[in-house]
């Protein structure tokens, strides 16, 4: 037994070295691509685009995880990118922020990282805490205000998102529709409202964080106590699903819906309206580059594209709210942008979101579990 143990120990360094060398070869690329991963994602200068394209051609693929709804935004953006670079196959996977974080951490732990890029509005802090992302630079950053970019360039804002109260216009007339959160306490809505309960960056949990940060815990608790009597249905699915159920008439009102979703459906003729209410919670979607990735060249081309005017215009066309200062939201989106309708906005940064998640969940459990 002990002899066996010694043999294994003696052999271990050799095995380890072999694995390390293999890993180095795998990640560092062949002799033709002598740049390190960090150098690639921080490339600057006139040759940058040429080097990235040449490298991406060899990689041939890029993988990104995003919380954007597939048919609304994730697929259009991916398709537009692929049209621009037909030699790169884009693989996307949609999950909410928590699932993306879980998936990335599991992949890292299993030495099987698949994703190169992640994007979402509740992701940044967790990714930073897990040390899963790295600083990067892109010529597109010059166009963005300083506060849209992490001080160490670990994330950059890729889009904005506001949350609203969505209602079915066949079941709720515009005149009687709730205009403020207090209106939700009207007994006539009892049993007819729903909200998403799965993630901290939308639905119930985000609304509670919104109220807590704007009103303080005391006022929020008083409000929640009354709201709990309204029997708001918890929905364990995406925010998009909650709005769909409102369109179907399953629920009349959705609290904490992603404000742009009803507008996208209303354009196709669906009976739904998006009503923002002060304080309007606002979040930024951020894009990040993971460390230890397999396709750094293609990844940087994708980051460039998402942040470029061209990529941001795809988001605009999809009725998402672009972050690029030169790309204004579409006219029909104005009703959900607080500064354009003169309403108070409560901006919830990734840090606020992350730091409040436990207390918020505790408060949710106290009144709604």
């Amino acid at each position: 037994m002990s002899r066996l143990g010694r043999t294994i120990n003696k052999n271990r360094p050799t095995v380890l070295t072999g694995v390390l060398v293999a890993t180095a070869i795998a990640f560092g690329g062949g002799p033709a691509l002598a740049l390190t991963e960090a150098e690639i994602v921080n490339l600057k200068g006139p040759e940058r685009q040429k080097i990235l394209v040449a490298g991406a051609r060899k990689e041939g693929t890029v993988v990104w995880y995003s919380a954007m709804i597939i048919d609304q935004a994730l697929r259009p953006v991916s398709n537009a990118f692929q049209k621009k670079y037909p030699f790169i196959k884009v693989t996307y996977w949609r999950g909410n922020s928590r699932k993306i974080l879980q998936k990335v951490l599991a992949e890292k732990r299993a030495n099987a990282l698949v994703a190169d890029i992640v994007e979402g509005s509740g992701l940044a802090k967790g990714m930073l805490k897990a040390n899963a992302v790295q600083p990067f630079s892109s010529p597109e950053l010059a166009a963005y205000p300083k506060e849209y970019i992490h001080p160490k360039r670990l994330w950059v804002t890729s889009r904005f998102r506001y949350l609203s109260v969505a209602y079915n216009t066949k079941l709720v007339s515009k005149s009687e529709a709730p205009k403020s959160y207090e209106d939700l306490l009207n007994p006539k809505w009892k049993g007819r409202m729903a909200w998403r309960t799965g993630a901290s960056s939308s639905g119930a949990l985000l609304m509670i964080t919104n109220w807590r940060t704007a009103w303080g815990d005391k006022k929020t608790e008083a409000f929640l106590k009354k709201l709990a009597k309204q029997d708001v249905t918890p929905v364990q699915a995406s925010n998009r699903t909650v709005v769909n159920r409102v369109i179907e008439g399953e629920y009349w009102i959705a609290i904490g819906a992603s404000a742009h979703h009803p507008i996208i459906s209303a354009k196709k003729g669906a009976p739904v309206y998006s009503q923002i209410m002060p304080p309007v919670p606002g979040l930024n979607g951020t894009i990040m580059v993971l460390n230890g990735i397999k396709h750094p060249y293609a990844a940087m081309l994708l980051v460039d594209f998402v942040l470029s005017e061209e990529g941001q215009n795809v988001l605009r066309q999809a009725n998402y709210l672009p972050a690029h200062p030169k790309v204004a939201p579409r006219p029909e989106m104005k009703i959900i942008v607080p500064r354009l309708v003169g309403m108070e906005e409560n901006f919830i940064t990734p840090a606020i979101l992350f730091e409040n998640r436990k207390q918020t969940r505790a408060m949710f459990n106290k009144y709604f579990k």
Partner: protein
Amino acid sequence: MTTKPEAIDSLWMPKETAGFWRRARSGFGYSPAVIILAGVLLILIVPPIIFLFQTSFYTTTFAGEFDKFTFGFYTELVTNPRFFNNFVNTTVYAVGSAAFAIALGTAQAWIVERTNTPFRQYMFLVAIISLGIPHVLYTIAWLLIMGKAGPVNDILRAITGAEEAVLNVYSMWGMILIEGVGFAPLAFLLLSSVFRSTDASFEEASMMSGAGISQTFRHITARLAMPGIMALMLLIFIRAFESFEVPALVGLAGGINVLTTDIYESIHMEMPPNYGQSGAFSVVLLLWVVVLLYWYNRLSRHAERFQTITGKGYRPRQMDLGKWRYLTAGLLVLLFLLIIGLPVSIVLWASLQPYYEGVTAGSLGRFTLDNYVEVFKAGSFRDSILNTLILGTATATAVVPFTALCAWLAVRRYKGGWFLDQMATMPLIFPAIVMGVAFLQVFLNMPFALYGTLLSVVIASVVREMPYGMRYSYAGLLQIHTELEEASAVSGAGEVGTFLRIVIPLVAPAMITCWLFLFLIAVRAVSMPILLVGPNSQIVAVTLFDLWENGQVTELAAMGMAWMALMTVVSCLFYIIVRRYRLSLH
């Protein structure tokens, strides 16, 4: 049964008596095939079990690595009132859906096997086709039908004049109803064999003594079938206990948790994932299934004693129902509607809509094929269909020969054969989601990149399906007398030659149906792959689940239609082969 002939034995294992080393070199009398198969089984089955238990005893770091030893997850289970509450939920749900499925299955099996009702022969086809519909799609279809905005509530609203939805499907009865209807085809297939193996002369005697049809059914048919029904009820109870789709899609939305959704939530709803909690839940669920399976084995052994297959030739005779047969035919049509007609219709309807607004007159004018265009375009949908076909093919292709060999060695009583039998049947104690948790930990802790690959899903799926392969092969092999193999051995063929040239051709039809059956089961699974797949290994059933969560109902429906069409081809193939070779469907 005769034991393995000496002739074969001597070809492989000369009788050595001299010395330990010589015996060791010849494998202590074990056939090399037994040793290799046992090795493979140990490698496949032991690590998940070890990791599952380890997971339940260790806390994890933010990144998910094992941290400190603890009993905490178990004490939390025992002290948390929610656990008992959910345990009760699970039991009510499992008993309810098992009873409902058995009631539907019994009625159907009796009508098909014992009466002269028109259309009865098509019910087998209906049951087989329903095997090709992923359970997750089926559940979604029923949610669309019975949801607050679904046609059922629309009709009830119109009748009662109520403003609100009359039925709330996101409730315990909704779960029982959907799961019960979902299991009805399986219950029917299994029960029809129970009815077929009961001697009809008792029924005839009863009829001749002046009892009516219903009296005969209650006092004779049902009584004779009762032990079989009880065993099946327990089996379906176990399956419902382990089921995931209905609890996840219906229960969670209605705030009703069961054990499987507790496991899913502790991994997916918390950040960092509470692997320890999921492990403790899994171990409890696993142990409970072990107890239930023990009962099931006792009960089914008991049930065999009640079977009335005797040496005398008999053929179950069909009862002439007279004009009542139109009523039973109506019942069969109703069952067809419940099992295939309605779910497929609503999915078809949704697949043709730009956005889903229920079944309204207004949506008639909005028909579009856009969703189908999207499904057939290159990209994730096509990838996941291809991945699923690979998964099904690889799983069935690996399991069938492997279990056939294991079963042969066990049936022919090779030394160590019983061990192969036990090991290959063992995965039965793992509920699918528990096996998902166990394999997730195995793949996460691998020194090389396996997590998230299609290969990893195939490996887990192979282990999961081994017991079914074993059961099929065992049944097929038991029917073959050893004479033919002995003749082969006497003519000079070796063990391998005999297996390949005598045994395989004889059991081929059974193997082919086994292959198709395993394929159909592998491609519809959700609860295990949902924990294992990655972006490059998406499979249809999980994609459907994700699309429902993401709210893409119309594309989900189009993909579901495309998939069902494909699977109907496979199911029909299955049906044709079974008929052609007069094989048992069970």
